[in-house]
């Protein structure tokens, strides 16, 4: 079953003094199968974040259709999704526990299982000892992990992560990768964007490649790597084919 299907997504923005139209997403279509890990690759400014924002309806596409588990995005199926934005600006006046409690309250009526679940999640992301500290005292890596804790707290079927490893130190990246592997083992679908091809190679079974607002490849990572020494070379080749 497809966790997400994106069909013909288009988005233009008006930019500059003369409000010139910039076509940011051009007929973007792809699908994400449940319980698989998809990497969303593209250069800076290629439209990765805009696509994710379009999928989650933070921006309104000019045209196109997005379905989650076969239905349009709704309050009901949002419960099945966990999301981490590119730069997780969080409510810094809250402590890590308060932050998770707030997000839990938005998903569930009862707080019955909250404490156990929150402790378990904070231990998993390595923030248990800092659970009562305000987020404003956290480093960038810790904030990223707190954001990730929020995304996995309610055990969603699909994780959508926008650059989950950007700006992290080597230890932070290792930890985030371990968490993602953990989520894979638990049968969660993962769709994450990155321009770190090494991470993609290690974590993903499938790739969606975007270049200048157009999807130039979607499919298995093994297929794209066929006849190529590395994902880097495969990516170069795809871009060449995409622009020609």
């Amino acid at each position, binding site marked *: 079953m497809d966790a997400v299907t994106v069909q013909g997504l288009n988005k233009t923005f008006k930019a500059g003094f003369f409000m010139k139209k910039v076509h940011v997403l051009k007929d973007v279509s792809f699908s994400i199968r449940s319980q698989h890990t998809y990497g969303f690759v593209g250069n800076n400014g290629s439209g990765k974040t805009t696509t994710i924002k379009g999928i989650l309806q933070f921006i*309104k596409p000019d045209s196109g259709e997005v379905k989650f588990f076969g239905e349009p995005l709704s*309050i009901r199926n949002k419960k099945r999704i966990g*999301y981490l934005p590119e730069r997780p600006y*969080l409510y810094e006046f809250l402590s890590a526990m308060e932050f998770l409690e707030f997000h839990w309250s938005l*998903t569930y*009526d009862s707080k019955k299982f909250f404490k156990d679940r929150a402790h378990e999640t904070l231990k998993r992301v390595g923030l248990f000892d800092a659970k009562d500290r305000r987020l404003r005292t956290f480093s960038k890596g810790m904030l990223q992990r707190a954001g990730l804790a929020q995304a996995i707290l309610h055990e969603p079927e699909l994780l959508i992560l926008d650059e989950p490893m950007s700006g992290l130190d080597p230890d932070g990246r290792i930890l985030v990768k371990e968490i993602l592997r953990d989520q894979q083992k638990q049968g969660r679908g993962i769709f994450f964007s990155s321009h770190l091809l090494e991470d993609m190679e290690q974590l993903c079974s499938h790739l969606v490649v975007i270049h200048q607002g157009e999807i130039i490849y979607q499919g298995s990572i093994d297929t794209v790597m066929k006849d190529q020494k590395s994902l880097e070379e495969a990516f170069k080749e795809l871009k060449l084919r995409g622009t020609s």
Partner: protein
Amino acid sequence: MRLALVIGWNTYREWMREKFFWVAVALSFLLLSLSTVLGQLTFAEEQKILMDFGLSALEISLLFVASFSGAYVVSKEVDKQTCLLLLSRPISRTHFLLGKWIGLIELLLLLFATCSLVLWFLLDSQETSWFFLIAVSVFLKALVILSFTLMTSFFVRPIISLIFGVSIYLVGHWLSDLSYFAQKSHSQVYVFLADALGYIIPQFYRFNWKSYYFLEKGIDLVVYRSMGVHYLSWVLIYLFVADFLFRRKDIV
């Protein structure tokens, strides 16, 4: 409604932990102390001066918090993108907006309750019911300004929204004067403009009861009820438009 209340509680906590709110509280108490001092300096009119200045102090404080928080509460979230995480949760944009609004009402209620109780003790007034009716009318004005600045923050920068909030408050109080001068000018254009303003701006001047005169004489309750309906209608209109704009806004 539960979701809006959860967001409201979080918004209330957020603003309670902001320095801005405590500056506003300090300003309120400074103005109330000033009213007390002014009252004591006057000969035989202490109650009157205290009431007039005290309620003005309450109104200024509420206006300050309402216009500032209304202008920044959502725009700050959109600029810093903190709203993305929230909107990815099982809530709608209407829940989010309503929650933010409820949170600020809780904040205004706290300020209102504290200041009006302090003023009531200072006044040592026998006319409790009139005093609180007048104070509530001041609170309702703040509610209108809060909803207005919240709405305008969707299409202008927060600082402009803040200026709009203060402007609508002032123009709302000057409407009768503007109408009077328009009649005197004998210009049909000015008369039309003054009339038009009366329809598109809340008529704050009609319900300006923050003086000792009304505490002594009382207020016509029919007029009071019509004031309540007038203010709450504007609040609903502003919230409806704000929701309409927010549901269509791209959070880039």
